């Protein structure tokens, strides 16, 4: 299902835990890296591999905003929309990105570069509002800083 190296990595993760299913998070990252998003086949395959039910895998995938069940842009722009960021004006950031890239929330630009998403609390409330781009955090974000970040990635 995955490349031999990745299969080996999954075996390695499984060996870290007393029960197989505990390896689900790293395994899903592997799936996502390999296929760009978590495909239907990935869900079924990992359920079998980790002794889980497909619904359990689906539940985990959809719970975390780091995983996606649909093809995604190369860069995921994830704006936190939970209460601290909300008070600090995350709406403006979302709107700004939306206008700038011409896409709505949960849409991807036609060139496949950017996807805009709203996510729940990223755990950086003291530095709200927060924007996460793939694995990087950008705190106390403003429309101007957003422009800079996007330009750099273009």
């Amino acid at each position, binding site marked *: 299902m995955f490349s031999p190296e990745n299969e080996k990595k999954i075996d390695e993760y499984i060996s870290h835990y*007393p029960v197989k299913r505990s390896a689900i998070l790293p395994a899903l990252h592997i799936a996502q890296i390999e296929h760009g998003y978590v495909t*239907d086949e990935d869900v079924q395959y990992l359920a079998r591999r980790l002794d889980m039910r497909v*619904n359990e*895998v*689906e539940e985990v995938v*959809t*719970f975390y905003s780091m995983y996606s069940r649909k093809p995604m842009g190369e860069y995921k722009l994830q704006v936190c929309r939970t209460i601290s960021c909300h008070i600090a004006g995350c709406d403006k950031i979302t709107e700004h990105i939306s206008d700038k890239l011409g896409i709505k929330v949960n849409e991807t630009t036609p060139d496949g570069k950017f996807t805009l998403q*709203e996510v729940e609390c990223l755990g950086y409330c003291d530095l709200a509002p927060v924007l996460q781009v793939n694995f990087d955090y950008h705190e106390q974000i403003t429309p101007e800083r957003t422009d800079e970040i996007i330009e750099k990635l273009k």
Partner: protein
Amino acid sequence: MELVKITINGQEFEAPKGELLIEAAEMAGIYLPRFCHYRGLTAQASCRLCVVRVDNPKIPKLQTACTMPVSDGMIVTTDSEEIETVRASMIEFLLSNHPVDCPVCDRAGECELQDQTYGFGEDAIRSQYKDKETQLERQISPFIYNDPQRCVVCKRCTRVCEEWMDEFAITTINRGSHTYIGSYNGWVECSDCGNCVDVCPTGTLLHVPYKYVARPWDLKQTPTICNFCSDGCSMLAGSRSEKLVRSVARDGRGRTAGGINPDFLCALGRYTIDAVHHEDRIDRPMIRRGEHLVPTTWDDALSYIAKRLGEVKAQHGGNSIGVISAARLLNEDQFTLKKFAAEVLETKNADFYHDEDEIDLASFFKNGSPTIATQKHIQSADTILLIGSDPNEENPLTAFSVRWAVRRKSARLLMVNSVASRLERQAEIAVRVRPGSENALIAALLDENLTNEAADVMGTLAENLKAVRQIVLESEKVVVVFGDELRGAALEALPLLESVLATPDPEAAAAARKAYLDAQQRLAQSTQSTAKPAINENPYSNITPQPTLEVGDEPVRSATKFSYLPLMRYSNSLGAFQMGMDALQTDGMIAQAMLVGGGQAIKALYIAGEDVVGKAEEPKGMKHLLSRLDFLVVQDMFMTQTARQAHVILPTTSFAESQGTQTNNGSQVQLVRRAIPPVGQARPDWMITASIAKMMGKDFGYQGAVKNAFKAIAETVPGYGGLTHNRLANEGAILVEMPSVDVSQLNRKDVMDRLNAEIARVNRHAIVNLGELRDKAGSRLHKRYPLITRYSNILPLHPTNGKEELAKVVMFPA
């Protein structure tokens, strides 16, 4: 039970130690609002509606009463202004994300969100989410409708699905306010039990067949008993305008029928009620005129039957007539048929139709009755030994109780089976054996020296059998649940277990039990997985037992270590047996023999409620046998293939249209109540039989009242003395004790010899089935019924020889 003192709102109460505060308060008459808490499900604590302040021991933050066990001296406040504000805000929070479309919601009128809002909420909602979950309503399974906007994410449904049904067919998708209940690909493949719909406090999950059918306040709800498997669940039969429209274990107001099945029903009890108003129902008596069956009046039909049966009896003698009943008919029906056979027809040949895999009751009760287990016995057992059968598919309530016992009470489940069962997921030891070799287990249990021989016959390792025997030996309460795989001498030998496997030393047994619980804890905590061959991991036993109110109180009937639950095939198999509708008790011909003897020893047959043609392996051959009879009467609800062969057809009522009693596999008799008036001109079976008897010169004295039929039962059938319909209505399920077994009457050597001889006959080349089987709960059971219901449409279960072969029916007004 140890009691502790707690103080709620300044008043002192006693409560069982360890009980959850929310339940303890309710026992004391103080109701705390809730969504996610549901009796008997694992804690969720997500709705925060049940918050209370705990002053002793002092806890700074408000606490959720649904997760807090009571302790001695606990002081709790539940009615302060602070708490009222918090509750009101939680409700407001939920409503801010709710469509409030009660006027078009099926749940309105029995909706907990409505009730909690009236009871504990405020009337204004000050905020609105701009991007709430706006998934459109849609159907997600043949029976479940889902409107995600109404969901309060209490997760009762997902917990029920996992904990009661072991399905995990539905789950939460997404998170935060985007959360909805769904599944991997949006369509739910499951057992269709509908329990998730029943427990849903809002109008999110709804029954498809009941959608937009009635308002709860227009429903007449009649507590009655399911007519399918031998477990005998209670249900509330809801009718509107004299039509049966729904069946639930618990309605939205929390009312139940108070039966043996806490809030549980399976797909059959719930979704096959449309059979009652099915278009194939026979609605008037019919009589054969040459090739055709033509409608006639009751009087004509009955007097014709009386005349013809009288003629056959006069010509060939009483024993040339056979009476066959379906095992699902009520006690009153069976009793009257038997009485009719014995006193009017004077034939020994009266038998309920035993399916090939019906339990061999004659052997089981040969020397008297062993202690029969009830669902409560299972729920409070230390160890459950399941031999043969798959309760998940044949007796879904039993499967529920077993899961319950394992999950909540850390019972140990041991399975020895030749068929696959989903219950293996809950088993500590699951041994798959050769088909037909289950008897050998009893030999190995009774005589340790036979272990190797037995293992050889069964196609498994001797260690597995030894492990089973050891656990049974050191347990204090063992319930043996068995299917038809145990036969003959093995059944006769069962009562011997009591003395052979008596717990050697109760203290040692208690220590062994504790060691088991501790080991389970360690296993759960250890970092090394310790999988043993043939011994399944038990994913649930690391949960320590928790006192609960609902089920699992000590059963009434139990002085013995062993109790036995025979998994009979039909709702009233045991009742039929007790009523004497069993030819072996009178040396008569069994049903199959009567059918084969058609035209020879048997000249006339009276068949009540059984489709012998539909059930036959060779329907054509069976039809031929029936055609050789001089006279055939069939009384049935449906125009079955058997009915089409009859000289006279009499339409009978369904369980919903008649009152009577039914005895389940735990030997508990329960009252079936009439929910709707008879469909068409249908009459109850007992009434029809009694009328024919009267025309043939014998008045049973029923005076047209079913209570008098039951009175006759109470007067003559052992164990039923002192029972009346009124008592059953007031007290619910009542245990019927049959004369108990006298072990001293048992010739031990003879039984063991016969058992060994049986074992020697097992085919040792048979292959042990190691495959997986994950069929719908209740599905195999349903395949026994030739009904076409909404439920059966989703199962590939109808004999294809069904519809096209129908004889011509001419219908015109009588």
